């Protein structure tokens, strides 16, 4: 375990060094992130402006969902996207061979090899939005701690789904678009689940569990869901992590490696 932490530290310091070769990227990332946030806030603002609201969600409460969504986006573009989208490239170019030959879990290598600082602005703005909404609603500090738990479960769910999609590239090789589809579906997490018709809500809870990514943590933060949502999210996260691990080992049996 300690060895893995040591490796992780070297992975990340190397990755950041590589990314910082391109300094202008950071400014662009910060700019895009701010643009994205302003866009979703504006959409929400227009909606609430006309006097309508999502059933059961006040303006500040909906803001918190947007904040959590932005935070998750930041996490995924910092930790998940740079690694998991690369699995496809490893398979296409045959460099997965090098990964498989290392005396270390290949899932760990593929999931943690790099980190990209370009998601940091999203993380920052996300937290800022959550805090703004939270202060307006006078949420007590303890609630923030409690809501971190379902947030971590949400991340685990997202990671597992994404990793499994990446792993299917072992069979389909060019699967790049599929991870984009996943990202598209995740966009639904921008607003509270109450914003969607029932059928969609079922889909986003049971098929692509977007509900657990943003709405559940937000409800926990607002102290309205109790423990149930978190428990379900936790069970789902653990199950999906196991499935993803098993699925990767299964997929590797079919790996034929790109020919020279």
């Amino acid at each position, binding site marked *: 375990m300690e060895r893995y932490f040591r*490796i992780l530290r*070297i*992975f990340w310091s*190397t990755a950041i060094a590589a990314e910082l070769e391109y300094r202008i990227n950071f400014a662009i990332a910060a700019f895009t992130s701010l643009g994205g946030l302003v866009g979703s806030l504006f959409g929400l603002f227009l909606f609430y402006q006309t006097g309508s609201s999502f059933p059961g969600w006040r303006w500040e409460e909906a803001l918190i969902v947007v904040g959590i969504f932005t935070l998750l986006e930041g996490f995924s573009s910092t930790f998940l996207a740079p690694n998991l989208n690369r699995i496809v490239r490893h398979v296409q170019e*045959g460099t997965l*061979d090098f990964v498989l*030959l*290392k005396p270390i879990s290949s899932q760990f*290598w593929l999931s943690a090899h790099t980190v990209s600082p370009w998601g940091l602005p999203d993380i920052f703005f996300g937290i800022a939005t959550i805090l703004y909404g939270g202060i307006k609603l006078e949420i007590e500090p303890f609630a923030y701690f409690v809501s971190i738990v379902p947030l971590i479960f949400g991340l685990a769910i997202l990671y597992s789904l994404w990793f499994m999609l990446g792993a299917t590239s072992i069979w389909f090789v060019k699967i790049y678009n599929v991870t984009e589809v996943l990202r598209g579906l995740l966009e639904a997490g921008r607003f509270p689940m109450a914003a969607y018709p029932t059928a969609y809500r079922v889909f986003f809870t049971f098929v692509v569990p977007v509900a657990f990514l943003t709405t559940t943590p937000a409800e926990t933060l607002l102290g309205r869901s109790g423990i149930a949502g978190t428990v379900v999210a936790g069970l789902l996260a653990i199950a999906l992590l196991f499935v993803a691990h098993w699925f990767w080992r299964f997929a590797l049996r079919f790996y034929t490696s790109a020919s*020279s």
Partner: protein
Amino acid sequence: MSTIVVEHLSKVYPVAVKEAGLKGTLTHFFKRTYRQVKAVQDVSFKIEPGEIVGFLGANGAGKTTTLKMLTGLIHPSSGRVEVAGHIPFQRRSAFLSQVTLVMGQKQQLIWDLPALDSFKINAAVYGISDRALEHRVGELSEMLSLGGKLNQPVRKLSLGERMKAELLAALLHEPNVLFLDEPTLGLDVNAQVAVREFLREYNQRYRATILLTSHYMADITALCERVLMIHQGQLIYDGSLDGLVDRFSPCREVKVEFARPYSAHELSVYGDIQDVDKQYARFLVQQEGLTGAIAKILADLQVIDLTISDPPIEEVIGRVFQAGTVAR
């Protein structure tokens, strides 16, 4: 105990078959037909510790597939493989830290960073201490004459330097079984010689076992006493390099310098002409008719000089592949 033991190894791939043209593409998209391709069929051999063995075969003969089964990257369809006392596909740490694979056409170094950064990652993964790493990098970079290049971003290195750095990265953990797939691909002659020299020295210094494929016969002749030859997935030769020439090309190369130019047509009766350039000509003559043919050339033509030698190995190999299946 042999380092590598391969017994009746086979690999069968399903490969999708696609007709050319739009119609073919549509059928391919909706209803795929697969053909079973036997990439490797019933291959058996053993390699002893410290040997350097050349692995020959045309493109698509099954060399890379075999190497990948030996390194545990792909699962054999049938047969048994044992490398350094382990079953490769189980990918145990004890196995992985003893072997390495270098692929001339793929790179593991991080493009934007100095090679040293990539070495640090590998060192952490293989559990090499900082001191051991420093020592090892010093030793190998001296053997490869890479001093000073390891601090530059990999993208700024020449192809030859990059290949050397790749070799270094692949050898950090002191593996004693090396699988090299076209390690000199695309390198200029000097860089090829340098890589070759390095491999020879490495083999002598560490008693490492090396299995090497290359399209440059010079690599094979310089390094390998023993060669394995694979053709259409089957092992057709396993023995010394010299023996390969005798076995597949029982003929000699005769180079003649004449007093005056002869046309190719005039010379064609004396043997299999390889090339004619003014007064110079090069023939391949069957071993059994050699003395007769030479006597005839000396009697009929005005000869200034004549030498007899083994034909170049490239031609021998080329003939074997052209001939198609060769009886064992």
